């Protein structure tokens, strides 16, 4: 489904990604790990066209993603969440989720202004969908609340809801359990697993919480200083000397 090949991104003198390549098959759940600054979020930003790659290719369902405009990523079925939240703080939780369905709607300035029947129908459908997603993620209670001032874990779920309503095939999660307590992590892992099979999702998840990543992912890709240093099933990557060194450092 996704083939990343020899991807390189430089910021000035810093090479954030250095010839990274990996593949993700449809239906897979892949964990992307690595110490801070390893280039995990940079990779996500390349996949969603926030950054231009200096070299390398990204093929998604056979299409070259580097040639796609940033706003055209969502319609291709790629959705993401953000590490430090990318919510719209002055919109309600429900409206935040509805923005996630933007690319599913057709209404333009004039047809919306005139509230043509087609627009009303579309709006009704999207709202019903939003309510279903909110319900699924236990957010119905806060649907009318502005998407700020709520617990961090709740806001993370709002982001997930917003990603899901776009009917993605590829879901990119950037540290989804960051800031959750142990019980919440467990619960989130369960929810994510269920949602994944309900929606037939392919998932790439960036996460520092090793218990979560190792428990939920079939395959792990480990980055360090922009380079892929390991790839394989969780139990293998966990024992990989390069990974252990990257996380713990070598004895001086």
């Amino acid at each position, binding site marked *: 489904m996704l083939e990343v090949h020899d991807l390189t991104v430089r910021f000035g003198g810093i090479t954030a990604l250095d010839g990274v390549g990996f593949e993700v098959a449809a239906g897979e759940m892949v964990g992307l790990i690595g110490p801070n600054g390893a280039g995990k979020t940079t990779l996500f930003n390349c996949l*969603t066209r*926030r950054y231009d790659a200096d070299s390398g290719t990204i093929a998604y369902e056979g299409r070259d993603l580097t040639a796609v*405009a*940033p*706003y*055209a*990523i*969502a*319609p291709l079925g790629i*959705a*993401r969440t*953000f590490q430090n939240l*990318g*919510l*719209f*703080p*002055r*919109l309600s939780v429900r*409206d935040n989720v*509805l*923005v*996630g*369905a*933007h*690319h599913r*709607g057709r*209404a*333009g*300035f004039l047809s*919306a*202004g*005139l*509230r043509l029947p087609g*627009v009303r129908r*579309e*709006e009704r459908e*999207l709202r019903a969908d939003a309510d279903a997603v909110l319900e699924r993620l236990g957010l119905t*209670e*806060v649907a*009318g*609340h*502005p998407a700020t*001032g*709520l*617990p961090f874990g*709740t806001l993370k779920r709002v982001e997930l809801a*917003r990603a899901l309503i*776009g009917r993605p095939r590829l879901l990119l999660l950037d540290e989804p359990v960051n800031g959750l307590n142990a019980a919440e992590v467990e619960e989130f892992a369960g929810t994510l697993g269920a949602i994944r099979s309900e929606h037939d999702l392919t998932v790439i998840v960036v996460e520092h919480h090793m218990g979560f990543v190792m428990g939920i992912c079939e395959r792990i890709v480990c980055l360090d200083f922009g380079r892929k240093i390991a790839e394989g099933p969780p139990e293998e990557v966990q024992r990989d000397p390069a990974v252990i060194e990257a996380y713990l450092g070598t004895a001086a």
Partner: protein
Amino acid sequence: MSATKVVTEPAPVRERRPPDPRWRWAGLALLLAAAVYAPFQLVPFHVFQLTMVLVYAVALLGLNLLVGHAGQISLGHGAFFAVGAYSGAILLDRWDLPYPLTLPVAAGVAFVLGLALGVPAMRLRGLYLALVTLAIAIFLVPLLKRFEAVTGGSMGLTLAKPAPPGWSGLAEDQWLYFLTLIVTVAAFLLAAGLLRSRVGRALHALRDNETAAEVMGVRLSFYKTLAFAWSAMFAGAAGCVYTWVIGFVSPDSFTVNLSITLLAGLVVGGLGSLSGPVLGGLFVMFVPSISQDVNDAAPGVIFGLLIIVVMYVAPTGLAGLAARLAGRLVKKIPRKE
């Protein structure tokens, strides 16, 4: 509720309960009834003033779309107001067009101009955008004076006001008031419909977080440019109605001052709220002349001080203040569950 339950539950959420929609409709109906009743109770001069409040409200509705909802800035909206006013005036003066037809044409001209200027302007942000839009407003007056053959130069154009039809039994000021009221209501319905839809959410999204909006598939350049063009169109429509009501246009009515006053009026009225433009219209209509009355020598000082006071007392504008007061009032009414 047991004590252990409380511990595991997240902090209680302070829900900002939206007012019951029925109350809202009742309030709007009451407001509309008052608006229809008012011209029969007021002296013609006050009817005229009220008409002008509505004219400015329509212009501010457009400006609000851009500034309050899409989060962009324009220091040059007076120019689009002027373009609408002059389009209407020239159509009436040169082609003797029936006046109802001048409205869509003037709005269309302002829309096209807004689109043409919006394409380059919307690539700019913040201060740069402010400067470019300010330049538009500054350029306009000399331009109007330059093309004297069409615009009447510094002397402007004097026109006949729309006459009330015999069947209506209305005086001229009342007729103009009702024409303006119809345009205002239509403009509000258009803006409200737009804002309640996918388009309004896209504008809010790009205002709050451009990156996230784009990841959700919102095409930033498209929405910014069209918000600018629609905003210009509302201002142009307001300008055209201004021409009907005043029956006279001249370059000196549309200086940079008008643009600044409009923006100040909107901020004082309340950015991003639907009632803000009406309150802002009251501000634009009355505050400059009141400050003239208070101190003839320094109207600018009084004007400025008033803005500062309002911003201090009500940082979310008069609309926000009104909502807060209403909220307090509602709390006192026991709620039936």
